[in-house]
């Protein structure tokens, strides 16, 4: 149907525009290259299924963060979902061998990979310069709690980076 086609085109163009968000989330929430592709696929599908409910009350990117982080966090890492084997190349290997990435990003990635799933979400939203209100509404906690958590997570992140250096 033409209407559906229009919606699909609109959706694809929005996803295309904000793809960086998806790449960043997949980058932080998967250990293997194959997992990253699976996660990208899963998040894209969830975004497409949820798209009809997107009323434009918030910015598309904010809505996208919420759906994508929800999907990444609630996918439990079990063999049937993450099929990659221990011998498969890890994202960490790729990052270490990458000439394109700057040294700070390499260290940051290694440090974030040691955080818990929810901590990763908080750090990601902080790195993306989201306001406390936006972080609170995405995670579902109070603004006051965001500040408490953020202090704690940032201290943990700094501690890990210090050990890595």
């Amino acid at each position: 149907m033409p209407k559906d086609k229009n919606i699909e085109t609109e959706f694809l163009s929005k996803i295309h525009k904000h793809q960086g968000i998806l790449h960043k989330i997949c980058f932080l929430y998967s250990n293997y290259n194959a997992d990253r592709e699976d996660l990208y696929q899963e998040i894209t599908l969830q975004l497409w299924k949820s798209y009809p409910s997107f009323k434009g009350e918030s910015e598309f990117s904010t809505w996208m963060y919420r759906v994508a982080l929800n999907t990444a966090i609630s996918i439990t890492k079990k063999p049937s979902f993450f099929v990659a084997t221990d011998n498969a190349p890890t994202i960490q290997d790729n990052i270490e061998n990458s000439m394109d990435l700057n040294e700070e990003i390499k260290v940051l990635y290694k440090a974030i990979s040691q955080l818990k799933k929810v901590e990763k979400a908080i750090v990601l939203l902080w790195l993306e310069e989201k306001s406390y209100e936006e972080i609170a509404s995405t995670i579902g906690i109070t603004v006051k709690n965001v500040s408490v958590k953020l202090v704690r997570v940032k201290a943990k992140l700094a501690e890990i980076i210090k050990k890595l250096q």
Partner: protein
Amino acid sequence: MIKIDLEKYRSAWKNEQSFDSQKLSNNDIRKFLQANSKNINKMFKTGLSIDIVLKSLLAISFAGLIVLFANQHTVVLVNAALIALSIGGIIYQVRTYQKVPKNKQPLQNIRTSLKSKIDFYNTRYIKSLFVGALSNSMFFLSGIMYYFYFKYSAIRPFQLDDYLVFGTAIILSFALGAFIQIKQHNFQISQLENCLKDIDEDTLDEYNIKKLKKQRIKNMIIAAISLVLGLLLLTYIIFN
């Protein structure tokens, strides 16, 4: 003592171009949309569908056994009961299928979404696992009755040891199926609960503090009563 300047990392993150440079074309994204989802809800729905089909086949096979053992009334009654059990199981699984959380969950904030998933897994889903495990026992029963029919054309009256052997096999087939599924279920729940705990760990709000204070007072009263009762009992024992 090295002081880490996190702002330096944040600005590196902000200026990192590689996330944008790996952009996929609209065609690639469309391919991702068409690919099969591997999410938990879908896996759970697939499991339910398989169980519904299996129970339907079992109901048909029990109906076949009624025809084959038409002259053995006890066997007919047992099979009729098993058909009723299969149909009951199918109805339960169909209702569970309809209650699997819809896709609106990703729209909620992470905490609410996790909470509703955990609630679903802890209520309807756990019961459905036991209903699903019943298929194993019914499959065993159906198989053994067909075996008896083709080997002996009848089922002879059971002795005590027969009841013990078949009873154990039925229980084991049920328990094994349930055990495996519950292990998987616990794994999923623990993953989700850990995430929820991460979110909640700092939420010691006024309500929780009041609740903790009340609990502490309650515990002290119980301890005091226990102490008095213990002393009274000790006194009674000593003086008698």
